[in-house]
């Protein structure tokens, strides 16, 4: 048996009520694994932001998580519109979220900056019209 745990989540589009379920489940597993509270918190916050972005900006997608004694890797892959200017999107406060989403309290433009802040490595691959893949790593 391998020294890692692999988890896969399908994220539905536009289902706000279920957004956060995947990161909630990962949190539960990390507790069972005996990860440090700090690591659990970093993963939960970074992944929740990413999960919400997939729902709001990209009609859902797929998340793969791999947990090893060394680190936690989260790969969030969507087939959404892509991000035209990553540098701009990464700026705190930048958001293209529509009004109906802002009414729910999202759209502060803090998601990507938080993901950067709470992960130890982050990489964004994006192709306009094809989709975005965000890879984040948190060290144990």
């Amino acid at each position, binding site marked *: 048996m391998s020294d890692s745990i692999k988890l896969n989540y399908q994220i539905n589009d536009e289902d706000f009520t279920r957004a956060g379920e995947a990161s909630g489940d990962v949190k539960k597993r990390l*507790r069972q*694994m005996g990860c440090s509270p700090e690591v659990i918190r970093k993963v939960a916050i970074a992944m929740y932001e990413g999960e919400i972005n997939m729902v709001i900006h990209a009609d859902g997608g797929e998340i793969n998580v791999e947990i090893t004694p060394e680190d936690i890797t989260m790969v969030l892959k969507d087939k959404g519109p892509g991000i035209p200017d990553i540098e701009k999107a990464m700026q705190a406060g930048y958001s293209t979220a529509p009004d109906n989403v802002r009414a729910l309290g999202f759209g502060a433009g803090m998601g990507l900056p938080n993901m950067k802040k709470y992960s130890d490595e982050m990489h964004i691959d994006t192709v306009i019209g094809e989709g975005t893949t965000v890879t984040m790593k948190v060290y144990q």
Partner: protein
Amino acid sequence: MRNHKAIITKERCIDCGECIRICQNHAKLPSYDPLEVINDYDYTVALPAPSLYGQFNNLDDVNIVLTALKRMGFDDVYEVGASAEVVSQLSRDYIKKHREQWPLISTACPSVVRLIRVKFPNLIEHLLPIDPPVEIAAKEARKRAVEKTGLPEDKIGIVFISPCPSKVTSVKAPLGMEKSNIDAVCAIKDVYLKLLPLMKQIDDPEDLAMAGKIGVGWGVSGGEAGGLITDNYLAADGIENVNKILEDLEDQKFGNLEFIELNACNGGCVGGVLTVENPYVAKVKMNRLKKYMPVALKRIESGDAIKPENAMWTREIEYEPVFALGEGMKDNIHKMNMVAEIEKRLPGLDCGACGAPTCLALAEDIVKGEAKELDCIHLLREYVHRLSGEISKLDPM
């Protein structure tokens, strides 16, 4: 469930009382002291919780209840609600001075504190580090009793009249302090039966009340937060709701709240399993009773045992990781993968017939060596079918 008996995994139990509430066969009973404990002391003081007042119909003077407690056999009474007003006073001050800890989470409900201790280590720093009202009341009551009687402290019995068994655990294993100041915990429901006839006989009650609206309000969800005189708070009750709020709080889903009041029981302390009245009815009764009370009666005074400094926690709450399946990261990963393998073979119906609450819980118990796969009746049935199939093949007929 093991061997037809309901078993609780002690390390994970936070004394929320759900098991007692839910089981119609009374498989789980709360533990508390019998009323006879008052015979163990030379002088006893009753500390009635505010939720006691919500149990009676048409009560418009708490002095009737307090006088009846004395006729029941207690030498004196000290309302926990009075000390709740002191805690409100201290909390207002603490919250104002500790913005960096916002939102502060109330610590009056021991089950909530225990839940945070085992499951939400990141939130420990948000706990309001002030002793709960009942502990402060116990200190004051003992001081007053010593002054009145001249007896040594150990001849005096401080008896909490409690809505919940979680406080019993807190007396044995206190949170945030070395040793509890309470000697015994009796159930509201036991006291209630004795009080009813006595209350009927009282025409001229003694003036014993020490708490106002704020103190009495603590018995109901939202009451503690109400005592802080701010709008910037959230109050949630019921263990499921509390759990959800804490999950969200840990993921930073709330903005700039000052205070979060959480009660494990529905409706707050009036929903405790040692009460008699339905929590929502009790709430109405408490609100009615509170209406004509002064806002607050008790503040810290110079002669009090409690000073702002000695009402604070003296011991830190430490994270108790109870969810790990094995020892160390590698072993845990290995065991979690085993759990996932076993879970795949289980039917996923969460029927509970095996004794575990869910298929996942059974899988975990199997990995921990506390159960086996054929405890699942669905797998057992398949197994029996397969066996009988093989036997019939052997059958020469």
